[in-house]
């Protein structure tokens, strides 16, 4: 990767992740990196994620409608210069991947998860090639600058970002920026040519507000924000409704909407929207200080309910936090459950998410 030398120079502890060598932490450590992102600004290298352009062969609308055939999401209603969260579903209503996509006037820009990108590109190519070119972008880096000082820092290099709102996208010469992220904080995601990435990252790191942040803090930040990690909290067995992602299914694609259904798994997803899912992703607050990691079994009395899908310690909430799946009748906030940690049943309470208030600039 283009930024590998920089990570090593910064003292990053490199680990294999989704086929890439990535920094799990820098010398400051996960706790300080996490807290710095919440109070100032953190710089993340997320170049391993997949960047894809859908370039219409005919009209933009034709491509947008074709993209809607893969997701329970209103693509057509996204205005130029705006980004939206999306999910590819399968015939069973499970989730193949979650993603961000943006209307960039004459084409759609898509960012998908690293571990899924090969499959996603094949999926899009198989279903969309009739109406658009599916162009995998391999010569661009992707950085994220997150935190309350992100705007101040980035505006020194790209002044226009100060006027952007949450989920706006902009093209500034060779630099593509969205006001979004994966931490619950205000911030930006920045796509730029790989050849320019190291110098750009270094300019940001030279600013007093900015610290490099590894994958460890990226995970604790997104967990506090209640955001799903694909492969843990959502996968091909979880539906968007079970996962608490119904907000991502706009009215136009629901029963009675202008373009109702017409996506893989519509029968299950529309049914769950109408009558409620059998199980739900919930936030969990373990009592005491012991974290409940993923795969911790959850119980109500003797009944096995499900398991934790993400869990750890929240540096900003200063307590262990987790999320997992339980049957709907055990999903109300305040419900007392138990999690089995090292053979012992420990009390845990269903809690509202996000665990840490988000600070998006609306």
């Amino acid at each position: 990767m283009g930024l590998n030398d920089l990570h090593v120079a910064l003292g990053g502890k490199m680990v294999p992740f989704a086929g890439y060598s990535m920094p799990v932490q820098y010398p400051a450590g996960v706790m300080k990196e996490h807290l710095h992102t919440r109070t100032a600004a953190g710089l993340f290298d997320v170049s391993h994620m997949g960047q894809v352009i859908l370039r219409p062969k005919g009209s933009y609308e034709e491509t947008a409608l074709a993209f809607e055939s893969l997701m329970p999401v209103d693509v057509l209603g996204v205005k130029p210069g705006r980004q939206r969260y999306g999910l590819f579903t399968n015939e069973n209503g499970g989730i193949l991947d979650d993603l961000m996509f943006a209307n960039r006037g004459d084409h759609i820009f898509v960012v998908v998860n690293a571990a899924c990108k090969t499959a996603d590109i094949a999926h899009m190519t198989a279903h969309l090639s009739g109406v658009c070119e599916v162009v995998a972008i391999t010569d661009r880096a992707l950085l994220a600058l997150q935190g309350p000082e992100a705007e101040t820092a980035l505006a020194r290099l790209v002044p226009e970002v100060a006027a952007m709102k949450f989920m706006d996208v902009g093209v500034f010469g060779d630099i593509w920026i969205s006001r979004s992220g994966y931490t619950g904080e205000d911030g930006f995601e920045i796509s730029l040519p790989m050849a320019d990435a190291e110098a750009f990252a270094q300019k940001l790191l030279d600013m007093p507000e900015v610290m490099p942040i590894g994958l460890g803090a990226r995970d604790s930040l997104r967990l506090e924000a209640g955001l799903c990690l694909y492969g843990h909290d959502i996968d091909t067995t979880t539906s968007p409704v079970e996962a608490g992602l119904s907000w991502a299914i706009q009215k136009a694609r629901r029963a009675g909407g202008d373009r109702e259904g017409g996506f893989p798994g519509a029968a299950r997803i529309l049914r769950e929207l109408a009558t409620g899912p059998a199980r739900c992703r919930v936030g969990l607050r373990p009592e005491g200080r012991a974290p409940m990691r993923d795969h911790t079994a959850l119980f109500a009395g003797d009944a096995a309910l499900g398991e934790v899908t993400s869990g750890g310690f929240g540096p900003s909430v200063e307590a262990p936090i987790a999320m997992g799946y339980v049957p709907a009748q055990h999903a109300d906030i305040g419900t007392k459950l138990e999690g089995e940690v090292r053979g012992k049943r420990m009390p845990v309470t269903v809690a509202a998410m996000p665990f840490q208030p988000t600070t998006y600039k609306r």
Partner: protein
Amino acid sequence: MKYTKEHEWLRVEGDLVVVGITEHAATALGDVVFVELPEVETQVAEGDEVSVIESVKAASDILAPCDGEITAVNEKLTDNPGLVNEDPLGAGWFFKMKLDDLSVLDQFMNEDEYNDLIA
């Protein structure tokens, strides 16, 4: 001070042995957020999982370095697990043991040998 392959240190204090984890181990684990301590007055055997240490990244077991009885635990770690990172060789100690036989300590590494192990 003696050192184990499991990155624990052992310091003789009268007829007791104080046990903690090395600075190398504390750094590798990252920020410690939870420590589960053994119960006092339990008999343990070498290799028993007597304590659990959770960092922001993962959980690790602390093993009993030799046979003996747990005589004291560092209660301060319950409320302030970060002591393990701040002062691993001092205030971040885990527990004290009364050994059946102090001579078993001879089998462990001295500081030079341990430094060679982690070099």
